[in-house]
């Protein structure tokens, strides 16, 4: 996938179905009859894109991921996959990396990483080779036989990420997976994540409250309004590819994009403050 194909400006109101891998049409969702959290969310994601969703606390960012993952059903609206895509025997439609730890503590690191592969129609040799490749990509080969309880926070997050990436999903859903990590560790994992998703052609949707993370990783950043929320703005990020995660924050365009996202987010949090 080329960088150019990742930089198209997205229109939240576009109706061109063929363009999108997955499209959310007018999604409405309520926790309770009088507690609507999502109020007509329209969003389309192109194949191979990396998009981030930011928004005020409680605006339903994680709920949106749960809806895409099928963990909850919208009250109205639809989630449409390109060409009626569904989970295949060799590649799942999506996987989800949670904010909380979902590693299985009785399995070694490598068995955690390959856990999702047992449900795919691939040989043991293929599964082992893919696990090896992923572990070496994030430099975890030396702890492959250890239990998760022996790992550091950064290593555990890496293994969680690999658990989601190993089945090579069409869409990788990330629900604030790096929020508990220190900055250097987080930047290291960002670089690894970008490298893996680019190399494997995985579309990624990241929910985060960290604007810097969203700007540095994404092709587009969607800012949600306050609850009951919708997509308030959709801001394209243009950086030279491949991105250097260690240096991206030094680029002049970074600060401009950061300010743009922050301004839109601030307007959702404090709508009375002048733009």
């Amino acid at each position, binding site marked *: 996938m080329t960088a150019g194909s990742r930089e198209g400006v997205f229109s939240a109101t576009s109706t061109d179905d063929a363009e999108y891998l997955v499209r959310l049409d007018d999604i409405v969702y309520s926790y309770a009859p009088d507690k609507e959290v999502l109020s007509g969310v329209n969003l389309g994601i192109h194949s191979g894109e990396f998009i981030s969703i930011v928004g005020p606390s409680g605006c339903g960012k994680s709920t949106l991921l749960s809806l895409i*993952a099928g*963990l909850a059903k919208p009250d109205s609206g639809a989630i449409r996959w390109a060409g009626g895509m569904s*989970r295949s025997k060799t590649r*799942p439609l*999506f*996987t*989800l990396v*949670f904010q*909380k*730890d*979902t590693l*299985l*503590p*009785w*399995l070694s690191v490598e068995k955690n990483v390959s*856990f*999702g592969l*047992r*449900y*795919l129609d691939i040989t043991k040799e293929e599964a082992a080779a893919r696990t090896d490749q992923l572990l*070496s*990509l*994030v*430099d975890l080969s*030396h*702890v492959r036989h*250890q*239990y*998760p*309880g*022996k*790992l*550091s*926070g*950064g*290593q555990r997050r890496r293994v969680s990420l690999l*658990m989601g990436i190993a*089945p090579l999903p069409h869409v990788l859903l990330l629900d604030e997976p790096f929020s508990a990590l*220190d900055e*250097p*560790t987080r*930047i*290291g994992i960002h*670089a*690894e994540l970008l*490298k893996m998703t680019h190399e494997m052609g995985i579309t990624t949707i990241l929910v985060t409250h960290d604007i810097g993370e969203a700007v540095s990783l994404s092709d587009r950043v969607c800012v949600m309004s306050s609850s009951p929320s919708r997509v308030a703005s959709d801001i394209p990020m243009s950086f030279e590819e491949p991105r250097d*995660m260690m240096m991206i924050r030094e680029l002049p365009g970074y600060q401009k994009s950061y300010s743009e996202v922050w301004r839109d987010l601030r307007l959702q949090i404090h709508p009375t403050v002048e733009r």
Partner: protein
Amino acid sequence: MTSLRTRGDDAETTSDPASANTSQRPKRMSAWRSSTRGESVTVLFWQLVLFFGFLAGWEWLPTVPFLSKHFLFFQRFFISSPIGVAKMVFYLATGKNYIATIWGPLGHTLSAALGGTICAIISGAVLGLLFSHNAYSYRIFRPFIVALNAVPRVAIIPIIIILVKSAEMTDAVTAFTVVFFLVFFNAFEGGRSVPIEVIQNVKILGGTAATVLWRVRWRYVLAWTFASLPNAVTFGIVGSVTAELFTGSSGIGQILIAAVDEANAALTFGVVTVLTICSLLLVMGSDVARRRLLVWWDGGGR
């Protein structure tokens, strides 16, 4: 492929040979290990001080006229002495001094206790797993389970005797009734403790309800069941001996009844000592089994 790691990322890892600060690690680890070892020695020291202090007090305090005169608790007749108990344990073990050996009754009691305990552990763990997997069923059965648990076991021993028509089986069934609920509630809590995100993740990765039951929830149930093993073993022995005291037909309970009838404090404490040693050994054994089988659990620091 290039590695994209950052400095200090693995600083908390306990066994990462490739860590950047390797020069500091051996010293720190060595200091930590020696401090842990030192702490263990101190703990053992205080345990020995308490044990021998207790024995010394038991031996010496009844010789104080004031205490033995004013407190029944300090009279040799009622509490014997450590030396007298040690002699009795020797006689019980060897059959000397016209005392029958304890091995036969002890074997009877322990086999009944272990039989009942093992059955209770298996059934408690399986039922705990099934109920934890199906919260709706548990809501229906909960009041009945709690009510059954509240029934005093001693009160139903006569019913058990009538039902099973055998003293040996009564011991095992009583042990079962005592241990079952302990294991069941532990297993149930273990099954319910699986984070919802773990279950959702397994399902998203392709797992079915059966996968969640046997590959995920069962592991948590096993861990919590093994955690209850030391208590289960002790409770099993207590249940079995209680039944023997009630029926008075065999096992350690029969010897205890005989000792009380003869007002033989040394025999009573001797039998209790043997039973305590056996319980301690079984608890230590179950603890070793738990550690071996649940390496990952200890690895998680829980």
